[in-house]
């Protein structure tokens, strides 16, 4: 980084740097200058990211990975911070850094698959947000984002509910009018008592069902197509081959009974 610029940046607060970045994005500043500005904001907040990441060490994830996730939150904070709210940048960034780390841990600790369509749409939403910000210099509202994606606002809201970590940008827009210093919305924001099961909860239960159905499928295939011989199993269990055979027959009968029953499982 150019030393003169570095000194000039050093005298500025986080908030002033971000304002400078916004103005520069709207103007004709060269990419090197913009990258210096970003670098300065990131480097002076490295300590904040690390201190928050350390608080999540009991998750069992490596510190480096937690820090990487935290940087994503920091970058989002830089992109979406609004000076008009009279909030300190570090306060705002802390919420987003924590949110991104929590999201990372939740993803890592779950072997549950996110449906392909949700992943694809999440990526499109993110790309549209970035493109909009690049073009307009401010984050999109729900209406603007829905327009970019060519979907209805209600469909977009459903999608955002499905990925908690993505909600803060657009939902924040709504909340600014009533709360000058909002923290990121939590699930309670979307699912007040008395309303229908939220999209997020429903999806998570459905995905749990899919995961269980997949395990069941593997067990059945293993049982009937790749299983050990009845004699082998009998030896392991200390029972006769005949007893193993009866065991399998019983499993088959139970499965047939379930399939013939009035309520079929969702696989």
């Amino acid at each position, binding site marked *: 980084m150019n030393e003169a610029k570095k000194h000039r940046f050093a005298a500025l607060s986080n908030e002033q740097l971000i304002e400078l970045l916004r103005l520069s994005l709207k103007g004709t500043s060269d990419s090197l200058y913009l990258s210096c500005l970003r670098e300065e904001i990131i480097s002076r907040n490295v300590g904040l990211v690390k201190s928050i990441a350390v608080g999540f060490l009991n998750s069992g994830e490596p510190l480096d990975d937690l820090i990487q996730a935290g940087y994503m939150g920091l970058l989002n904070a830089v992109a979406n911070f609004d000076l008009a709210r009279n909030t300190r940048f570090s306060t705002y960034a802390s919420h987003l850094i924590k949110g991104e780390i929590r999201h990372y841990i939740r993803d890592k600790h779950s072997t549950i698959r996110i449906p392909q369509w949700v992943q694809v749409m999440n990526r499109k939403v993110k790309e549209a947000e970035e493109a909009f910000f690049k073009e307009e210099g401010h984050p999109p509202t729900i209406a603007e984002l829905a327009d970019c994606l060519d979907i209805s606002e209600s469909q977009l809201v459903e999608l955002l509910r499905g990925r908690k970590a993505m909600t803060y940008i657009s939902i924040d827009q709504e909340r600014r009018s009533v709360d000058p210093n909002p923290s990121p919305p939590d699930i309670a924001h979307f699912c007040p008592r008395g*309303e229908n099961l939220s999209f997020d909860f429903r999806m998570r239960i459905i995905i749990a069902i899919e995961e269980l159905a997949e395990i069941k499928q*593997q*067990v059945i295939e293993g049982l009937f197509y790749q299983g050990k011989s009845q004699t082998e199993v009998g030896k392991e269990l200390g029972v006769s081959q005949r007893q193993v055979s009866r065991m399998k027959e019983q499993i088959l009968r*139970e499965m047939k009974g379930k399939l013939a029953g009035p309520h079929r499982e*969702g696989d």
Partner: protein
Amino acid sequence: MGEETGVLDLLNLIGKVIEELQSSIELFEASKHEDGLTQLSSVVLEIDYYLERSDDDLLLKLVPIDRASLRERLKAVKGELVSVIESFSSTAP
């Protein structure tokens, strides 16, 4: 098979749990939140109960399945359901 061995087997567990999860969704959608939460809690307890006794599940000896991985997958499902219960409970006024 569960009755014969005295231990709930994996296929029975999964069949039962899937039905209960489907029923919990229906309860939530009918705004019977307390019943839905009870149903979810019951699923968590059943998975827990099975995990404690899975070493005794004879069915698992019949199939070439990695038990450690299976346990992790069931724990992940349980963890996700616990998280749904906690999130939903936290919305109580």
